[in-house]
């Protein structure tokens, strides 16, 4: 689930509020996106991919991270922000991740694998 919005990195562009398919964020009084409905988060990482400044961290769990977990600690997470955006290959100077797609190897392998009845 979404766990951290970094106030330091966020430029208040509202993109995450717009793109979250389950409408998890509200615009807070300070202009920062607030995680208003964490329970609706489906851990799809879409906000992480779309945030232009790597200000979001989505933890890998389908429930909330326990209190005190490193997954809620901005300092401990430093390098982990925006990981999905890097993989998808969005942002200046990056190559779209789809160029490296190798699914054909694995679908082909499945199709031709010998199967026991």
């Amino acid at each position: 689930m979404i766990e951290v919005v970094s106030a330091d990195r966020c430029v208040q562009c509202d993109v995450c509020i717009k793109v979250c398919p389950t409408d998890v964020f509200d615009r807070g009084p300070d202009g920062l996106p607030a995680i208003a409905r964490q329970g609706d988060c489906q851990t799809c990482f879409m906000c992480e991919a779309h945030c232009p400044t790597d200000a979001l961290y989505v933890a890998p769990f389908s429930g909330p991270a326990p209190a005190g977990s490193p997954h809620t600690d901005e300092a401990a997470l430093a390098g982990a922000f925006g990981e999905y955006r890097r993989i998808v290959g969005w942002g200046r100077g990056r190559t779209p991740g789809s160029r490296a797609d190798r699914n054909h190897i694995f679908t082909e392998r499945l199709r031709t694998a010998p199967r026991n009845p």
Partner: protein
Amino acid sequence: MIELDADVLVLGGGPAGAWAALAAAGAGARVVLADKGYCGTSGPTASGGNNLWYVPPDAGARERAVAERFEQSARLADRRWMSRVVDETYRRVDDLAAFGYPFAIDDDGVERRGSLQGPEYMKRMRRRVHRSGVTILDHHPALRLLADDAGTASGASGIARQKGGEAWTVHAGAVVLATGGCAFLSGAFGTNVDTGDGHLMAAELGADLSGMEFSAAYALSPAHGAHTKGLMMQFATYYTAGGERIDVPDPLGARLQVAELLAAGRKVFARLDRAPAELHQAMRDAQPNYFLPLDKAGIDPFRDRYEVRMVLEGTVRGTGGLRVTGDDCATAVPGLYAAGDVATRELVSGAVSGGGAYNGAWAISSGTWAGRGAALFGKGRRRPRARAAGSAGLGPGRLDAAAVVRAVQAEMLPLDRNLFRTRAGLRASLASLDVLWERITSEGLAGTGRERLRARSAAAMAAHARWCYRAALAREESRGLHRLEDLPALPRFEHRLVTGGLDDPWTAAEPREAAA
């Protein structure tokens, strides 16, 4: 109150809705597309990506592909529709290349077009839809369809959930439903927007459904999340909690055996230790969103054993949905078209799940046909007085939507109820679900403003569950996704089953000649 007018209204902006909007706009229609979430990120294609049923135009290869897949469909697919899907998908993927989708080039310098990475694919589809002059309404879930005096679909109304739940209405000459399947809020990767809203809205106008018994699609996920990407499990070995290897005769058919253990309450662990080291990077590049949640959790799937669970995907990767009555994906309701997962996929995948191939292809092709069909029907059609239809979960009432969702999930999520079906179990579930439905309609569901969506979606899931299990009871055999006790597949059931109705659900065999 937001009011708009269009020739074609598309509900849902996943791949099926996006292709429908493009086709309708291409046919000269004025188009509005309304999505519950955001067109470009919403739905499992956007988050998960699609491997496609993609066969180049070589007559022999296509014939073989269709013949092979027809047998795999447990003989409920339709060869003519299968050929249409192969052909349409191929041509639309050409369009996608022309839109600039950055396909991969393989080691032989050949562009590989059979796989679409979700975020990239749907971002480009959105851009294209926008450039075609379509009005996109994000975070505008539809709650009801409008019908004119003759019962023809004439638009929809709903709420703008990021505008305080303000009401909206779009009057339209025709409507394309592309609201996805229903995964019962199981959390499976990207599916929580798919609560069967479209099926309910269509049934309220009298549409029927087909293949709802083929709804027991479950997929394996690491236990800490719900990332049900299955392709890499071809390299998995499974282990017990004690670290003992679970002997599976056929690693590719291991799912069922793992499901049996999980249903019996045992813990199961996986490790991708059959993957040759030289493929590790290619695996990551192919399915980055399988590895990302593992990496984030500090698990090295090639080295560590990680616990797995099975997550329901219902009619998303399952097959049932609205019955289509013609090549243009018309439904039984005039002016109403169905595309993608909201429509039955039996014509292509028969009794089996189409995930990993047909589903994405079906979304592309059925979307294109439905969009074109709706444009032909809706352009310039005069619309005598249209009224909103449907009421379940919409009147103000006492029931708590979250409690209704939990009650539906209690019948639909457990493996020993939905995957390993028994007649006694199905009957017990239906008894509870029928009482629940009666309470929904008599007591109403609580929720005002933006919360009306939760109420309506809860009602939609209850309706969906009842169709799934009614159809399951009517198919007294096992076939494809539907497993009933230890019954074998029977020749006398080699036909589709049609379902419908809300207060009095019914099922019937589809007569052969009526098959679309």
